[in-house]
């Protein structure tokens, strides 16, 4: 069974944050994902970031679509409300929730299949609308839950587990988020907790649309070495997924490297990712510069990680709609209903 990596100091009664909460208060159910799945590492980073920010766990609304990645909100912040909506439609549900109550923190969790294919439109529109949220894509280049089909972020020329070559161009969600006007754009790697935790924390603090694309290796479908039959068998008997890791489990990949350097990461299947961490003197306030930087390194086969762009003065959808400060879901009939006297006037104007 996959357990969320728990930090050493995690003993009840030990370290507490400003609000007096321990790590446990930020945990959720036990993950049912494959052991070694990058998504579980992201879960751990979300827990860590929320702990460090001293967020009240129940003031977070965690919303997702459908996919292995979209299951993860069940595995963190057990005292907050989660919503596993429909495939690719997390952004609209989150937008609605945010309109109803601007006071909560909105965490949107999605997969590359969820966000770059069926939900590509919703991804784009929630960002261009500047919904105040932290939108995390757990990007493994494949459809995990439906067993290994290419997703739209898979590189052209890459091979699937079944040996099929991908002939379509890849969608770079970060490049698109930048183009659509996201006011916080980052890319990271699930195994780089040192980088990911502060990025998530900063994204949550950011008022506006924050987007983080997290490269997150899929052990099951980046793993070409045997066990396919057993894995498929277990996969088809969904309520037995917990046994998966016994069959295919691996340690999650983790990295730790210095800003400005390139780190080559070997995935479970032996493919290699060249991660380039942004320099300390990189200017993340230049949207155009960020786009160029991204493209330049992509051409070299490098995946740039770090905070690519941030607008510290960002506005959000509520600012654009000029809504009242009071959450709309708390307004009552007194505040909302114009009353019978007004209706009489309306009637009179219709004669």
């Amino acid at each position: 069974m996959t357990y969320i990596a728990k930090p050493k100091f995690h003993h009840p009664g030990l370290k507490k944050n400003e609000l007096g909460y321990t790590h446990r208060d930020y945990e959720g159910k036990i993950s049912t994902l494959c052991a070694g799945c990058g998504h579980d590492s992201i879960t751990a980073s979300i827990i860590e970031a929320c702990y460090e920010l001293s967020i009240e766990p129940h003031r977070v609304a965690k919303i997702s679509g459908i996919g292995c990645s979209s299951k993860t909100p069940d595995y963190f912040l057990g005292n907050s409300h989660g919503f596993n909506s429909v495939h690719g439609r997390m952004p609209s549900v989150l937008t609605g929730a945010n309109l109803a109550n601007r006071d909560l923190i909105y965490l949107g969790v999605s997969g590359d299949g969820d966000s770059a294919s069926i939900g590509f439109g919703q991804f784009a529109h929630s960002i261009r609308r500047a919904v105040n949220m932290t939108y995390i894509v757990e990007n493994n280049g494949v459809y995990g839950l439906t067993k290994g089909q290419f997703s739209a972020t898979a590189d052209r020329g890459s091979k699937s587990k079944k040996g099929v070559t991908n002939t379509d161009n890849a969608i770079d969600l970060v490049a698109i988020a930048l183009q659509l006007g996201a006011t916080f754009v980052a890319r990271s790697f699930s195994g780089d907790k040192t980088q990911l935790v502060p990025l998530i924390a900063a994204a949550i603090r950011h008022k506006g649309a924050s987007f983080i694309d997290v490269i997150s290796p899929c052990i099951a479908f980046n793993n070409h070495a045997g066990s396919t039959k057993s894995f498929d068998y277990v996969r088809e008997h969904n309520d037995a997924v917990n046994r998966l890791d016994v069959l295919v489990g691996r340690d999650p990949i983790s990295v730790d490297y210095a800003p400005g350097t390139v780190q080559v990461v070997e995935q479970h299947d032996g493919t290699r990712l060249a991660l380039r961490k942004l320099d300390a003197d990189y200017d993340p306030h230049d949207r155009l510069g960020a786009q160029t930087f991204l493209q330049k390194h992509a051409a070299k086969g490098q995946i740039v990680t770090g905070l690519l762009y941030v607008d510290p003065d960002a506005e959000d959808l509520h600012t654009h709609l000029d809504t009242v400060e009071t959450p709309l879901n708390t307004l009552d009939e007194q505040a909302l209903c114009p009353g019978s006297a007004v209706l009489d006037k309306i009637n009179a104007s219709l004669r």
Partner: protein
Amino acid sequence: MSVQSPISSVNDFVVRFANVNGSGSASANELFARSILRHGVPVSPRNIFPSNIQGLPTWYEVRVTEDGHLGARGGVDMMVAMNPQTWDKDVASIEPGGYLFYDSTKPMPTSKFREDITVIGVPLTAITNSTYTDPRQRQLFKNIIYLGALCALLDLDPKLVEQLIGEQYKGKEKLLSSNVHALHLGRDWALQNLKCPIGLRVKKSDKVGDRIFIEGNSAAALGAVYGGATVCAWYPITPSSSVAEAFTSHCKKYRHDPETGKAKYAIVQGEDELASIGIVIGASWNGARAFTATSGPGISLMTEFIGLSYFAEIPAVIMNIQRAGPSTGMPTRTQQCDVIACAYASHGDTKHVLLFPEDPAEAFEFAAAAFDLAERLQTTIFLMLDLDIGMNHRLCRPLKWDDAKQYDRGKVMTAEMLEEGRDFGRYLDVDGDGIPYRTYPGTHPTKGSYFTRGTSRDRYARYSEEGAVYADNMQRLVRKFETAQDMVPRPLQANAAKPTKYGVLYFGSTSPAMDEAIGILEARGHQLDRMRIRAFPFHSSVASFIADHDFVYVVEQNRDAQLRQLIVNENGIDPVRLVPILHYDGTPITARFIANSIGDHQDHLKVTPLRKAVT
């Protein structure tokens, strides 16, 4: 051709305007309808517009009806033929003895007229061109000039028309005086050159009373304001767009914080219907009252989310302004063709609540009530309008609101209740009515949170695919739907003057035509008890009504007798007992159609044994 005497009728006739889309005629035509109302005479106008924007034909029909028959009548007594493109068809559609009004600037060959109608030519273009030089002015004022000529021909009081123009251009003196001038140009020309008035006349009366004149879509939008909707997400589609547009303008007027000027509402034009319903579901999940307005194609796209609303039990309000389908069908024509699609929308076993308002007044009431119902039942509520009510002005009783009314937010467990130690199971049926409690996100630091999902779960919202757990939940949803039966508007029954073995069921916009048809049928000697269905799930009285009659006609505006199917399916009724009366050419159903269809069937019964007639 036989010599036909011209139709002569006071306060009871149909005028149809044939125009070119984009010529600015709409406001002049509407002014005509409103002017007659100001004479105290009811009117029932209808837009007839094909799905195009500029340059193609469009019609506007005004039924003048002292008796207050608000359904479409059928037939045209006077055609105001302003569109050369549709001339032949327009001329052909005039009733024998009727009138043709046209622009006589250019001479027309006599072959273009009919001998059995009265032809009235007014050189509109010539008058306009000699008065105005600006091309746009020429186009717009030509419409007001023909309105002026009609005033003289139909004996309308020009003072009442002027008064209306005054209201329309309040504060815009220049526009006011130039419009009044154009009106008089037309009227004076007609008085000097034509025999005025003609056989069709308007005479002052007192039959309008305190009724108001409003479009169903606008009334439904106002219902959403009164019902406390704060979030609206929508995607443009005819004939529903004007709901969201009206909601926007009503909110701008009535929903701003007096101190800060900030909006107590959020309106988002979604990127599509998928997003619109997603936003509604997200907002409702988070405790706001939210709705979307759409039409058939939008419903098709929304169905996956509607299933989620049903199964995860999240409130949602969808206003479906029906148009003729399937697919793009006839986008600007009316039908009642989404009954089945909405009642069972989405995959798996689902059932949804439908409300069927008959007119704008009910559209207002039902729209407001839909939010109470959605929260009370935690499910999708469909407000089923159609183009005929939605996009046409209807005369209806004034809108009413009881200031003592409080919104029914349904079963919501608060932090205090959780603190008291109340057992919270998101899908626990504590009261036996199938309706569980919910909590809003952010309610309590340690209690009451749960995970919302479309996958199966137990009573405490824990994921489970165990068969018994799933079945338990599905059974409870059936119980909840049974509870809904007594919460939705009940059907209304009216009995014939004499006891009868026959009944008729109908719903929605068919109402005024049905009312009129009953009178016609009575005059033909046919007695019918009638019941107007106002909601699905059907109240038990629907089954009793059917049981009380030998057989019952079901009148609807679709090909496949969808309401009848639903009644048969849900109530286990023998289909033979329900005789379909179906109108589905995209035009609003008329009293003539209903009376003829039922009347012929009834006449047939008199000479045929019953069993043969109904099989």
